[in-house]
């Protein structure tokens, strides 16, 4: 077995209440690593086209990767893969917390959950005893994620759902500690199986090829992270809320359902504001993470709880016309406890507010008015009244009540809190990402508009190249499985030190913006180890990795996801953006919206796809994607 992998896949059948340990497929692991890559390969191979995402035939796959259990910074994450009930295409989501660590210590790389239990069930995995217990979860059913984990105790590491997952809200997530695999409705799939919690423990040690070298190198990386302007300073000090002022200043902070990109009072939602008003602590619920971007806030009646992330502040703050951090703190806590994705939730609430504003549906919700929001969040999670409609997400609501032109989703997945009219590469990424409109499948915005180089985000230069490189990299990172923040450290501190008005900054920006094919060539080079990502993988597995290998593996995963989506009936026509983004100008100099039509052909060409967005046979052959 390749070092870094435990070598076992656990298959659970909830209907029959049986389990089996199977050997990890080494050939798949070599091609796809673990995590999202391995999970996607399994999903493709295990399922027939057209299955019901909420039916027993949709496997729910929990997958770790070769770096989990290694104590590498930010290596505490696991991936969840299934067919998404929200999009009908590939569903994948990643989560921090401690479950990945527990699973790997139990000597398991991947858990495949099949079937459906008629009664609520929870599963305990004792890796040392090779024992799996199916236990009655009736008493836990209905509890929030916090109470559920408290009831389960600290002896094991858990992945649980809240009421939203139980009620199959299409954007319900899976929670581990205070972190959530929020996107694509993976929690609804878990709920459809009657599975309340999956818990794992063990004492197995991860085998590495070069443990001493890995530890020494990791110590150096930790020092780099500590001294890095984003990982060691901004994220550490302000959390992800530190981005609010930047996106607001750049007119790309979604406001009133993306009707604007700036809110004059958004500063009240920022990490800087939180530091001065209401921050009660820093809580890193991610094991081995030196960044500790989690914030603790006080919510009356709930106590000290995890504070909101940037996405939550954007989508449940300014996107709803709200800039009162105390309200967002409370709604965020509710969503986490109920097991809801705050991005999809915020966009859906914003959509409901605009329906009300236009007189298309009496939702009782209004921009800038917190009245009724908390009640609606609870109603969504329990599918009560109108909450049952909002539980279906923005796309389905727009089909039923109208408003397609301002339904802010791609492929059914609601957009994140970066308006792509101020970040063209991010728009291409949203449009083409296989799971739908999400920012963490590439984070292109960091390389054009929110990071240190600040190229012009509103011309066509590099706007097709950046998403390809970043999507590939994110696929690889989500298969190791690491946090995407690890990649932010790849931009050296010297670049951050450049003064924005200086000639060095200007030169660096011009060189980057005009690098074109050279950029892809450099990123795809297989000459030597150049980053901690490929160095860690090499030292743990004993296989040779370079940045080029990561690009190749990522492209393989991305193309397999694409083939899965095509098999499920999605087409190139789904590579689009909401009408509002395409047609409505957001900036004074704009006459229209995002120029996706000009960028998509170039993106397809770089990907090796035909004009309809279908991977060419030679592309699949080159990448060894078997379909």
């Amino acid at each position: 077995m390749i070092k870094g992998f435990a070598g076992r896949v656990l298959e659970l059948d909830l209907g029959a209440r049986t389990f089996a340990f199977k050997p990890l497929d080494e050939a798949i692991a070599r091609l796809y690593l673990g995590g999202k890559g391995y999970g996607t390969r399994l999903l493709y191979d295990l399922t027939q086209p057209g299955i019901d995402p909420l039916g027993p035939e949709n496997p729910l796959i929990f997958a770790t990767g070769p770096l989990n259990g290694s104590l590498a910074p930010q290596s505490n994450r696991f991936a969840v893969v299934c067919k998404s009930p929200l999009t009908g295409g590939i569903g994948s989501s990643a989560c921090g917390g401690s479950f990945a660590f527990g699973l790997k210590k139990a000597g398991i790389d991947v858990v495949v959950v099949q079937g459906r239990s008629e009664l609520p069930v929870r599963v305990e995995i004792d890796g040392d005893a090779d024992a799996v217990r199916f236990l009655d979860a009736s008493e836990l059913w209905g509890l929030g994620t916090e109470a559920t984990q408290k009831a389960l105790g600290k002896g094991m590491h858990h992945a649980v759902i809240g009421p939203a997952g139980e009620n199959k809200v299409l954007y319900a997530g899976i929670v581990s500690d205070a972190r959530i695999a929020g996107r694509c409705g993976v929690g609804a799939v878990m709920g459809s199986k009657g599975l309340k919690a999956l818990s794992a423990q063990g004492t197995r040690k991860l085998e590495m090829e070069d443990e001493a070298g890995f530890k020494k190198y990791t110590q150096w990386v930790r020092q780099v992270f500590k001294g890095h302007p984003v990982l060691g300073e901004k994220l550490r000090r302000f959390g992800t809320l530190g981005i609010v002022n930047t996106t607001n200043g750049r007119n790309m902070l979604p406001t009133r359902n993306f009707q604007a990109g700036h809110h004059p009072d958004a500063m009240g939602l920022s990490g800087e504001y939180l530091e001065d008003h209401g921050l009660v602590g820093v809580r890193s619920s991610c094991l081995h993470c030196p960044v500790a971007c989690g914030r603790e806030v006080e919510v009356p009646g709930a106590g000290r709880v995890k504070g909101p992330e940037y996405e939550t502040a954007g989508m449940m703050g300014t996107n709803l016309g709200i800039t009162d951090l105390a309200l967002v703190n409370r709604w965020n806590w509710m969503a986490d406890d109920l097991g809801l994705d705050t991005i999809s939730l915020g966009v859906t609430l914003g959509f409901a507010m605009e329906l009300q504003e236009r007189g298309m549906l009496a939702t009782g919700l209004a921009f800038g008015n917190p009245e009724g929001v908390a009640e609606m969040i609870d109603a969504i999670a329990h599918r009560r009244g109108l909450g049952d409609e909002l539980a279906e997400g923005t796309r389905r609501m727009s089909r039923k009540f109208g408003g397609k032109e301002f339904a802010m989703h791609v492929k059914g997945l609601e957009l994140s809190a970066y308006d792509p009219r101020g970040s063209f590469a991010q728009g291409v990424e949203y449009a083409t990402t296989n799971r739908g409109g999400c920012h963490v499948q590439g984070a292109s915005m960091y390389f054009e508009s929110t990071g240190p180089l600040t190229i012009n985000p509103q011309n066509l230069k590099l706007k097709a190249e950046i998403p390809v490189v970043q999507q590939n990299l994110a696929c690889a990172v989500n298969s190791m499985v690491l946090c995407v923040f690890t990649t932010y450290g790849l931009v050296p501190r010297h670049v951050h030190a450049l003064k924005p008005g200086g000639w060095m900054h200007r030169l660096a920006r011009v060189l980057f913006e005009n690098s074109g094919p050279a950029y892809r060539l450099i990123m795809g080079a297989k000459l030597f180890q150049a980053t901690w990502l490929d160095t860690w993988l090499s030292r743990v597995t004993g296989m040779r990795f370079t940045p080029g290998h990561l690009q190749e593996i990522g492209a393989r995963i991305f193309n397999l996801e694409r083939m899965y989506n095509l098999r499920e009936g999605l087409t190139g026509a789904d590579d689009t953006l909401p009408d509002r983004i395409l047609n409505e100008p957001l900036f004074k100099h704009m006459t229209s919206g995002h120029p996706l039509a000009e960028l998509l052909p170039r993106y397809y060409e770089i990907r090796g796809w035909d004009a309809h967005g279908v991977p060419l046979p030679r592309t699949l052959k080159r990448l060894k994607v078997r379909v």
Partner: protein
Amino acid sequence: MTVTVELTYDMAKLLGTRAIPLEGPRTVGEALRAARDRFGDQGAAYDRMAEVAAVAVNGVLVAHRREGVRLADGDRVTFVKTAAGG
């Protein structure tokens, strides 16, 4: 003609205001100087923080050529942190 200069959080905290409405400036340079003049003795602190921030007009960075960029009525001149993770 009215334009508004918006400060970063750190600047706002130190200088006691988030946004400065100004009458008359026709370029970014004029707006930034007029904003600085509002702070009297604290002008040096304003300069130190302004130096490491980018400048956007209505959300579009103007960076190195900011001094000469012409403004229109209602424009928003914003200091922006150049990098934020998340």
